[in-house]
Every structure is written in C-alpha cells, then in structure tokens.
C-alpha cells in the first residue's frame, strides 16, 4: 500500500470494470469446471451446462418449486418456533445471573451436539416426515438463538438500565423502552447467522429423514439413476437460496430503526 493510498482510497468503487471482475472470476472457474468435467474418465461429474440443463428439467417438471417450498416451509416453522421459545428464555436467563449459572453447564454440553445426531430420536418420536425435519431444525436453531439472547441481555450496558431506573421507570417500561431496543440489534445479527445454520440443517435432515425437499432431491437423484446433473443442480439452488436468505436478513439489519448500535462503523 503506497503513501498516497489514503487519498486514492477515496476513488469511487463503482466503476464498471471493478464490478465486472468477480463475474470474470466466476466465469474462469466455470470454464475450468467444464474442462475438468469433459476430461474425466468416469463421466459422473457433470459440467456446468449439464447442471443448467438439470435445473431446467426440474423447472419443467414443476419439481423445483415444490422442493424449494418444502425446504423453506420446514425451515420457517422450525426456525420460528425456536426463536419464539429461545429468545424470551434467553433474555430472561441472561438477565438473571443465577439463572445463567444454573443453566450454563447443560447448555455447554448440548451445544457441540450436531442436530443430526438426534435423528434416531426424531424418527422415534415423529416418524419419517415433515415433523421430524422441523424438529431437527428446531434443535439446530434453538441453542444458538438462546446463546445469542443470553449474550444480548448481558451486553446491555449498565448505564442504560441505571438511567432508566434513575428516571423512575416501572419494570415494564424499563423492559419496553430500554432493554428491548438495546438487545434488538444483536438479536437480529444472531437471527441471521442462525438462519444460515437452519438452512444447513434442513438440507442435511432432508437427506436422511424425509421424502421431499432439496436435500432429498440430492440423495434421490443419485440413488435413482446416478443423475449427478440434478445433484449438482440441487447444490447450486441450495447455495443461491441460502445466499438470498442471508441477504434478506442483512437488509433487515440496515433498517434505520435498528441501526443505532452500528454507529461505530
């Protein structure tokens, strides 16, 4: 970085050439992929064009929409349930030190357990189907959200609370006008990250426990005929939707009424 870097850094970054570069990079990768696919001896790995063809086929048969909706449906339910339970619980635990002391060991032991390890129990309780998948997503989302809420509650600066009490606020008002605005920014970031986790879990859960959805597509396409073009097509769709979910949540973070804690940026 040169000495004039500071001045040069103020050049507008929206010049067309600069924006084109990532696309060029992707293009190069795609070309490499196509070459590798053509040169392989086993003819299993599909090239980019075949994947596009696979996506088109899914669209034509109406399967793409059906599977995407199935996966999103499960994620939504599992995630929202987890949020509805974990956030109030977590905020409460974070607020009362003794509660955190009490529950911390249990949380720490449960945290490293992959939700997928619960699959036998999920199938035992819910059988193979939607509910099992939703249960797994719930499990995968619950602890991270709980931890986020605990953290958020503990991070509320004492000055805010003291100021509120100084002005004679009732506990209800304190929660509504001081506590809640203070924790919301952190909660939204946690929600975004956990949504990403939920998306990972749903795909994995569908590969094992259900009969529809994008994860199922991947497993089924391979088992019923080695349709790797559909397998990779499924992976690409998974990536794109995951990205869209993440971008959607990020735009929520930008909503003005939530932005105050980012003023340090």
């Amino acid at each position: 970085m040169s000495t004039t870097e500071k001045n040069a850094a103020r050049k507008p970054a929206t010049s067309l050439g600069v924006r084109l570069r990532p696309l060029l990079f992707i293009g190069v990768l795609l070309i490499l992929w196509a070459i590798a696919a053509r040169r392989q001896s086993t003819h299993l790995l599909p090239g980019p064009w075949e994947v596009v063809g696979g996506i088109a086929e899914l669209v034509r048969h109406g399967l793409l929409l059906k599977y995407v909706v199935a996966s999103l449906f499960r994620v939504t339910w599992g995630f929202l349930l987890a949020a509805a339970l974990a956030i109030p619980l977590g905020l409460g635990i974070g607020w009362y030190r003794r509660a955190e002391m009490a529950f911390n060991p249990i949380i720490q032991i449960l945290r490293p357990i992959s939700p997928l390890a619960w699959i036998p129990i999920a199938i035992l309780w819910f059988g193979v189907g939607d509910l099992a998948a939703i249960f797994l997503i719930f499990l995968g989302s619950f602890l991270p959200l709980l931890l986020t809420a605990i953290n958020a509650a503990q991070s509320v600066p004492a000055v805010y609370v003291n100021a509120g009490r100084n002005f004679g606020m009732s506990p209800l008002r304190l929660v509504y006008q001081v506590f809640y605005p203070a924790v919301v920014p952190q909660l939204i970031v946690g929600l975004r990250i956990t949504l990403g986790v939920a998306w990972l879990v749903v795909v994995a859960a569908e590969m094992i426990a259900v009969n529809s959805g994008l994860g199922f597509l991947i497993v089924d396409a391979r088992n019923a005929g080695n349709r790797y073009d559909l397998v990779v097509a499924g992976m690409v769709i998974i990536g794109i939707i995951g990205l869209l979910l993440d971008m959607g949540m990020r735009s929520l973070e930008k909503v003005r009424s939530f932005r105050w804690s980012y003023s340090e940026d």
Partner: protein
Amino acid sequence: MNSLAEPRKWEKLFWPLLATGLLLALWHYSVIWTATKIFPSPRDVEKGLAELLLHHVLWGDIRDSLRRVAIGFGAAVFLGIPLGLTLGWYPAANQVVNPVMQILRPISPIAWIPVAIIFFGIGDSAAIFLIFLGAFFPIVVACINGVSNVPSVYRRAGRNFGLTPPQLLAKVVFPAALPQILVGLRIALGIAWLVVVAAEMIAVDSGLGYLVIDSRNSGKRYDLVVAAILLIGVIGLVLDFGFRRLEKIRSVRWGFRNES
C-alpha cells in the same frame, strides 16, 4: 431475593446442580409416566454409558472421529489461513473471490456428500473432505476480518520503521489479527465436530456418529443412542475448552480482555 446482588461462591455450584438435578428428575419421571418402552431413562443411559466404556470398540470410535477431525481441520487451517490473510491484505482480491465464497458457504457440507463420494469413494477420505469444507469457510472469513480490523496505527508504525510489505504482514498484521483468528479457529473446530458426527452417520462405518445410527439400527438400543449423544457433547466441550486455553497465552491474551 435481590437479583442484582453478587452471587456467593457456593451458589456457583448450587444453581447448576439444582437445574441439572431437576432436569434429570423431569426426564426420569416423564419416562415413567408415559410408560414408554423404548425411550431410555437416565438410569438406562448411565448403564449404557458404562457398557460403552467397557467395550473397547468405543475408544476406537472416539479415536476415529477425532482423527478425522484432526486431519480435516488441519487441512482447513493449512489452506485457509494463508488464503484468508491474502484476501484480507488485498481487498481487491477479496472483492473478486468473495461472491464465489458467498454462494458456496450456505451449502451444507452434507449436501456435498454425493460429490465427495465421486471423488473419494465411501470412507474416511470423503468424511475428511466434508470436515475440511465445514471448517474452511469460517477460518477464511475470520482471517479476512482479523486482517481488516487491524488498527491502521499498527500498520503505519510498521511502515515507519522500514518494514517491507511481507515483513509487515508477518510482524505486525498477523500478530495483531491473531486473537480474532483464534476465535475463528475455535468456532471452526466446533463446526468440524458437528460435521464429523453428521458425516459418520452417512458416509462411513466407524466413529461416534456411526455409533449413534448403528445403535438404533441394530437393535433399537436407544439407551446407547442417548449415551453416545451425551458423549459427543462432552468431547466437543472438551475440545472447545482446550482451545480456549490457547487464548490465555500471554502474547495473545490482550485481544481477549473483554471476553466473557
């Protein structure tokens, strides 16, 4: 009880024991009240755990899982840190590569299994590849963030003393970013542990994840299932603790002063 009063020392043991005890009791009585024949009670799990510990196979499974994590995680560290440092150091490079990473990142490592099987066949290598994938992206992202968060005073001081860019990277940027990189590594290790268990349920025939599935498939031994699940949790916790000790080394501790 004044919830703002400073908790006393005995309370540090009292509350967790109380909560855990209550939970175990709840579990125990739920099993009795619902008269389930399949779901194990805490006692059953305890016996199952003892059975597993005496079985020498368990230690083999633990060793296998840990080995896969070690190799996959090690590879992710070996490749991910240089890449992350480079991308953090050259924002232009990051801007080019980032979109690709953003698309690949939301794809669960488990979804890569069919592709992994093409390349590696069924077995260890496939599982290790999946672990590598799971750990790789968090490490790269942590490095990128670590480097870009290095306060510019440090870089300027380094240049002032006549350091060339490679020296600057090695002597100033890397040490300054190290706390954040370590946090990323710890998180990636946690992810690696999650992935290995999941990968073992599908793609291999040994390891703790396999133990979970196998206990159910060959005999509906749900007591072993739950015992294995708890073991997974404990070992994962031990790994996490071990890593946190690294964060206490003096030359890195400065970056963690605010960690709870």
